[in-house]
């Protein structure tokens, strides 16, 4: 967060936004960045401040390598293309297939010749016989619809939790258990995540979005113990962690992040690391419900995440912060690269030690498994007067959890969902958007308290 802002660097992950399309990509000088059918020349993006908007110029040729040029403003063609005439209403508008004189072939031809989006859309408008007969608003809508297809502006953004979570949700809500970004936000406040705190997060099946979100809020101050099922966190999870948490420069010294596998919760609880502290991990019964590794299909551009990002970690912050995260290969990489790195085994031990004091500041569950037993078990690691929260794509398991936690004496139990509606705001055309998400998952929250009556506070 320097005053002049960080520049777009070689080898780091960024979110590329093109209209309503988002993509997580690792930018490398030698490579191109694929955006749909077009590819962008990465060299032209590097060195500009993060957040810069670029206009893509068609390079022509077969490869269609787009050349980015930084611009101050993007252009809304609906403003630029204004017809001289427009109708008062649509009474004379006829629905037929003859109103557009341009053919697909001619448009493709224009594209290959390197025409800009504006030129193409202008040509399409000029060749529409019905355009003049549309109302002013309808014309703008028409142009915007066409513009979407020939949109030529992109922006390169820091991969923050806001963008990463929205991107995953947009690609496929089920990939992250329908965890919409507003639900994620509620989880973080329901758990009152604050820097310096110690949080126990059980996550499986959300591409580590919740882990990354808690890490972002800790900002290098505090601790996070990540419980997960299986031997190593999924590569996609590790990647989300890396992407969001370590690519930032805000990670301050003295922060530590420990993760451990759930050594079948039993072992973890007794503080006994099973066989060598994390090498092999017992999976819970009937688990096996492992999320497909999103790494490849979600983010084709970020292959080999471990080596490069680990290097980044060592280079900029690890020496001070000893910030560590794991996955078998990452740990190996780190061992080779830094004497400061903790091994996976040490990581597990640290996490188990932390848990054994049973005074975590927050408990967050977001998992594919039925949460009731996990929650009942993990509650013991939470300090009193601290919040816990459970996310579930279904309401019913949370109702069971509600009664289980009531039986444990917890207070302020609440089962909620949030309802999110986006609006189109345009002069005289403001209304809710036509489509909205039907649901973003359910949340149970509550506080753990001590019910052994305190003798010291008896009043008169």
């Amino acid at each position: 967060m320097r005053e002049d802002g960080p520049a777009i660097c070689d080898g780091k992950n960024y979110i590329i936004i093109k209209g309503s399309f988002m993509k997580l990509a690792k930018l490398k000088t030698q490579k191109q960045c694929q955006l749909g059918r077009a590819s962008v020349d990465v060299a032209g993006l590097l060195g500009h401040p993060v957040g810069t908007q670029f206009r893509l110029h068609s390079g022509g040729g077969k490869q269609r390598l787009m050349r980015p040029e930084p611009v101050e403003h993007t252009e809304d063609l609906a403003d630029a293309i204004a017809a001289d005439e427009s109708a008062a209403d649509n009474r004379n508008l006829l629905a037929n297939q003859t109103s557009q004189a341009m053919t697909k072939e001619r448009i493709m031809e224009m594209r290959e010749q390197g025409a800009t989006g504006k030129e193409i859309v202008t040509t399409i408008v000029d060749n529409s016989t019905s355009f003049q007969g549309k109302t002013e608003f309808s014309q703008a809508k028409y142009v915007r619809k066409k513009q979407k297809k020939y949109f030529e502006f992109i922006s390169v953004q820091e991969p923050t939790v806001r963008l990463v979570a929205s991107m995953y949700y947009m690609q496929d809500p089920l990939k992250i258990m329908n965890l919409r970004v507003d639900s994620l936000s509620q989880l973080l406040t329901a758990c009152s995540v604050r820097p310096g705190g110690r949080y126990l997060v059980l996550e499986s099946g959300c591409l580590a979005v919740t882990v990354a979100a808690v890490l972002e809020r800790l900002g290098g101050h505090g601790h996070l113990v990540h419980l997960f099922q299986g031997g190593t966190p999924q590569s996609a999870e590790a990647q989300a962690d890396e992407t969001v948490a370590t690519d930032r420069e805000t990670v301050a010294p003295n922060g530590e992040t420990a993760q451990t596998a759930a050594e079948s919760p039993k072992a973890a609880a007794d503080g006994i690391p099973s066989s060598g502290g994390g090498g092999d991990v017992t999976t819970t019964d009937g688990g096996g419900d492992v999320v497909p590794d999103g790494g490849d299909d979600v983010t084709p551009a970020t292959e080999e995440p471990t080596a490069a990002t680990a290097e980044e970690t060592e280079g900029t912050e690890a020496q001070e912060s000893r910030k560590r995260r794991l996955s078998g290969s990452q740990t190996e990489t780190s061992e080779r690269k830094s004497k400061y790195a903790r091994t996976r085994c040490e990581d597990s031990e640290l996490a188990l030690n932390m848990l054994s004091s049973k005074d975590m500041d927050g408990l967050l569950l977001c998992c594919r498994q039925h949460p009731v037993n996990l929650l009942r078990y993990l509650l013991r690691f939470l300090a009193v007067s601290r919040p816990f929260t459970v996310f579930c794509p279904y309401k019913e398991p949370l109702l069971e959890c509600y009664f289980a936690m009531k039986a444990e004496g917890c207070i302020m139990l609440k089962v909620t969902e949030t309802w999110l509606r986006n609006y189109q705001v345009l002069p005289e055309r403001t209304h809710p958007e036509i489509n909205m998400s039907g649901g973003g998952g359910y949340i149970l929250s509550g506080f753990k308290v001590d019910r052994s009556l305190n003798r010291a506070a008896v009043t008169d």
Partner: protein
Amino acid sequence: MSFKEYKTHVEMGDTVILYLNIKNIHAITVTEEVKNKKGNMVPNIFQTVYGALKVKDLVGMKYGSQVQMTRGWAFALHPTPELWTLTLPHRTQILYTPDISIVLTQLELRPGSVVCEAGTGSGSLSHAILRTIAPTGHLHTFDFHEQRSRLAAEEFSAHGVGDYVTARHRDVCGEGFDLDSVADAVFLDLPRPYDAVPFAKQALKKSGGRICSFSPCIEQVQKTCDSLRKHGFTELQTLECLQREFQVRKSVMSVFDLSQPPTDGSADGDERPSKKAAMEERPREVLTGIPLTTMPGHTGFLTFATLPPVMTSAT
């Protein structure tokens, strides 16, 4: 002093959240004496539906434990910004946690962020921002109401977060933030947010940042969006978020099977129609969550936007 970080035991001067039941939660400051209506100092006794509490007796108690009162007991909870939002003294309308949560995420706040907020109001959002940006960030908060601004500043320092915040009495719409290129994010909750947009732009860092405007009325949103577009903000998004709470119930429903003949009535030759018109099976227990009969249906529209970095002539 208890907002700064978690601690285990109540100390003098702490703010304690006294939980009696879900509808009865209070924030109390632990002092030996308080001023009464006549301005005299009297022992600090807090009256509740479960009887009186000598507030100084809370000192030394473990947070999260039970407090005995004359006619029942309560829990002494550690304050969090979310509990504060439920219990704070209202000097204005306030933002509630569902909206606050979205604001924190969408403004990308994290430790180290520098934030400008106008107006301060009752400090509900301010406390949540402070929790999120401490210990390395800073909040500049403004209110055009002198007393509100002063009371908020007093609260911040009483809560131990005074170092992370500057509360000023200032009319942002007319005079601006008096800050140049320092902020990562700006939050506007003003009657005329569109007038503050150019000042917000000035307050944001040259490397760009995020802005949020909260308005209850769509007319304000309309004008704010126009203003944001005019001043070069991108990624405009206006949304509304409501929290639906479910009452969790175990309910028993009787079950009938109309396809089976009644079990009694016709057997003893009685001419009157049977009371049991159909076969009744064992009642079924249903575990369910039902929506509240009334819920907040509107709080405000949240408009978010991004200010891209300022282009330097070199590039």
